[in-house]
């Protein structure tokens, strides 16, 4: 979710008992949760799920614009 998926997965620090919903609001300003697949430790969770230390959170968009040209092919 950081750098619109173009960067590396990263470690972040959050306050104790931060909910997934709060984390989303802070990291994804202006975005709607229903437009993303949200997983904590590979499982779908409720919005009020409280994060624990070491939790792995992934947020993947459900709508991405494809194209008709393959960028790798163009580079060739």
């Amino acid at each position, binding site marked *: 979710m950081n750098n619109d*998926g173009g*960067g*590396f997965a990263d470690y972040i620090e959050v306050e104790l008992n931060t909910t997934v919903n709060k984390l989303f609001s802070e990291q994804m300003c202006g975005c709607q949760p229903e437009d993303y697949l949200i997983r904590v430790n590979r499982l779908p969770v409720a919005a009020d799920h409280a994060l624990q230390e070491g939790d792995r959170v992934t947020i*993947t968009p459900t709508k991405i*614009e*494809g194209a*008709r040209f393959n960028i*790798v092919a163009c580079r060739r």
Partner: protein
Amino acid sequence: MPPTRLLVRAALKLRAVCIRHAASAVVKSFRDRLGPYQTALETARGSLAEAVSDPGAGRLLPLRRQLHGLMRAFQHNAEQILRDAEQPAAQVPDLRSFVEELRQLEEEFGGLELDLKKKTLGVSTDAIELEGVYLGAFRIQLGWDISRYDGGTPHFNVIAENPNPPSSNEAVTHPHVRDQSLCAGDATAPIERALAQGRIVDAFFLVRSVLTHYNPKSAHVQLEDWDSGNCRECSSSVSADDLSVCERCGYEFCNDCISTCSCCEVSCCHECELRCSVCQGWHCSKCRRRSARSGRDCCRSCLRKCAKCGANVARDELDASSELCPTCRPKEAGAPEVIPAPAEAVIPSSPLPTENDHECTIPTAAN
């Protein structure tokens, strides 16, 4: 769910590919960052040799500055290489993480298939429909046979399970899929990163996100043209809703090139229709008839049976009163013409001839 042993073997293969890819990325970074300094070092070496051989020529000060700048730039890039190597991207997840990735793939999509021989793993999406166009389900297949793929990176194939291609291009099964190859657009870089970091599920999620979203600005075939076709006669491209099938030849035609049979009312193209010589209407080949007497083309509505012989003839060839065909008609109506009509007697005004009058004749009706 595939058995655990198969999951572990596949995870081992995938992890090995990721490690290889991470190592080659670090090597590439090393070459890209430090390669240009090789030339600069050679230049500096030459300058140093000259300065040593001729120290009085005032070359030492500029050479010192040049070397300082070179070493600072080299140090900066070497530190960057070290930082890159320590990034999470270069740290490939452990085997357990890869097994968990495969398990999650099965839970999210279902139907996970692993083929260690072909070096592929695949899952299926649900049926996809975009803007009213049904495209069906797709098989998302990840191949890790690095010898087949440019750059040695795993590659996705997207295979339509029940292809519904547009009439204009059978190789296109989705607006962003042609020849089973996905043009990921905005998802290209995130997919590459996810695969490089061993986040297999994220990569599959991203592929599915492209498949379930339509980008009209960059599609192989626009969805509005998906169901269009070409008229067989005039070759114009029209929407499928504006194409009609000729019921006789089976080809598709636009509204301008198709008509309706005046007898059976089926759709019929111009090649398959004929004009009736009696009513001048257009009819299809099935409704075509030939008059038994004249051989003229006419529709079945314009055929009538002769009241005597029963032959089907064009209705304008039957006698209106007797309903007889031209062949039957002369036998009944021609009898008076064959037997001559009786002649009328002519009474002469002169005295009747005697037996001694040899030149008198009895007048008869004129022949």
